[in-house]
């Protein structure tokens, strides 16, 4: 197996851009990544294009990658369209890595793009609801915020957390986003702002939930030979894992899929939980940060909500989480989110995160983890992607 390196990253800021097309958003992120890598774009041999809703929202039901990447200059090379709901980005990234690690190509690109502001937010919420079994949930009013609310209620009941703890996460993520020029919301929120914002799905208020967003992100990966030719010290893709949701256990005895998948990944690449210096997790609602940190085995179950009060997950804390502002503050353009997590960890590892740069004992961090989840099947999420990067 070839070693895989991230040689270039690019992003278009997340936010509301009514005048910017999917073609524009794609071209912007792709060419930022090409320039960042300093590579001849003709060297890119394969592309994975991550998008979920250009069919439902923008009418482009098929060959999205071929259409949008043509506008960025790409033809002839294989382009694979990836759709795994909110986990599309990590799925595309993992497959770009697989194309390189298998030796099939020397350089591949993963691109995530989404345009969710289409002038009718109900249309967007309805499209998002199709990331579940539409036959089994028809007419129920399935929306993901409600699923996160149900999880939040369970966490509160089991461990004694309150909405205050969730608001602390939103506050922390908003502080990080203030320092991120690519974030949708760059305004510091207080706990009071969060708790007093309007209720979306009890106990989750507006500022506890990730917003609808437009945006794009791109990552170019390459084998060791190409990475060395480019010169600079490159970020290494230590490993990644992709899973689908597990079957419902009526006895509720099995570990979560996040726990199963992360244990498998840690074992495979031979590093320990204590090697993880920082995380980008999938806070489609802030309440899941606790679940994600705990299920990844980084803290014991039922303790993360107390750690947020100690500043553990802040930029200067022991385990910084969502340095980018996370999905709640940076924005959540579905197909782009998983790719943008890789962009953030790469910038942190390179020491290019400017005001939101994380340090470990005065030095740049060595290893970071991304957790990206998406969709729903029966009683679990549909897809899970975990990636570990190091330098």
């Amino acid at each position, binding site marked *: 197996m070839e070693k895989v390196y991230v040689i270039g990253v690019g992003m278009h800021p997340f936010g509301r851009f009514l005048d910017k097309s999917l073609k524009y958003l794609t071209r912007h992120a792709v060419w930022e990544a090409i320039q960042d890598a300093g590579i001849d774009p003709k060297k890119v041999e394969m592309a994975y294009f991550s998008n979920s809703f250009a069919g439902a929202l923008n009418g482009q039901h098929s060959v999205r990658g071929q259409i949008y990447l043509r506008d960025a200059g790409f033809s002839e090379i294989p382009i694979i369209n990836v759709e795994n709901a909110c986990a599309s980005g990590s799925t595309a990234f993992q497959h770009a890595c697989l194309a390189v690690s298998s030796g099939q190509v020397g350089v591949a690109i993963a691109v995530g793009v989404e345009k969710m502001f289409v002038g009718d937010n109900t249309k967007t919420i*309805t499209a998002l609801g199709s990331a579940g079994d539409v036959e089994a949930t028809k007419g129920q009013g399935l*929306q993901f915020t409600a699923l996160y609310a149900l999880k939040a209620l369970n966490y509160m009941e089991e461990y004694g957390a309150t909405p205050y703890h969730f608001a602390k996460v939103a506050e922390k993520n908003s502080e990080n986003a203030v320092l991120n020029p690519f974030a949708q919301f760059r305004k510091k929120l207080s706990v009071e702002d969060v708790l007093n914002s309007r209720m979306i799905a009890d106990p989750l208020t507006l500022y506890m939930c990730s917003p609808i967003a437009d945006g794009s992100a791109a990552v170019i990966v390459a084998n060791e030979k190409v990475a060395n030719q480019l010169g600079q010290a490159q970020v290494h893709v230590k490993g990644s894992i992709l899973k689908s949701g597990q079957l419902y256990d009526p006895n509720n005895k099995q570990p979560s899929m996040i726990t199963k998948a992360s244990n498998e990944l840690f074992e495979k690449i031979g590093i320990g939980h204590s090697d993880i210096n920082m995380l980008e997790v999938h806070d489609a609602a802030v309440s899941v940060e606790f679940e994600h940190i705990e299920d990844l085995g980084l803290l014991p179950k039922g303790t993360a909500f107390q750690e947020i009060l100690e500043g553990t997950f802040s930029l200067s804390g022991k385990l910084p989480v969502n340095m980018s502002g996370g999905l709640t503050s940076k924005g959540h353009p579905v197909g782009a989110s998983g790719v943008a997590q890789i962009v953030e960890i790469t910038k942190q590892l390179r020491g290019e995160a400017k005001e939101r740069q994380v340090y470990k004992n005065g030095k740049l961090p060595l290893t970071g983890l991304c957790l990206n989840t998406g969709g729903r099947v029966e009683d679990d999420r549909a897809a899970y992607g975990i990636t570990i990067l190091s330098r």
Partner: protein
Amino acid sequence: MENIREQNIFLIDKKGKPNLIGSKCLGCDHMSFPAKEVCPYCMTNGRSEEILIGKLGIVVSATTCHTAPKGIQVPYTLGTIEIDYGVHVLAQITGNTIRKGDKVELVIYSSVSVESAEETIGWKYQIVEGGGQ
């Protein structure tokens, strides 16, 4: 009265009672909803029997939603219901007060879209009269 069957999800039986359509694997006894020909627990193919379930259930958790997809009026309640054999289903729940542990029954409703005038027949759970805590 004929059975009324919708997309293999629910049916109204000859007595006019609504049921969800589940399946039981004859290989490993696991229940599935929606019903499946292949059991996802043991991957036995073609040895499952259809079982009508979900006439009654218990609220496991519920949240009141203040935004909604198309065709749903706010506020509404979405929750997890435990039905026969410990199966969990996600469903809309109606009732004046909805709390964990409440008894619910399956009901069929029909709604007509204002935009397309199309009629939809759907299912949801309703708090059983006097079945609250």
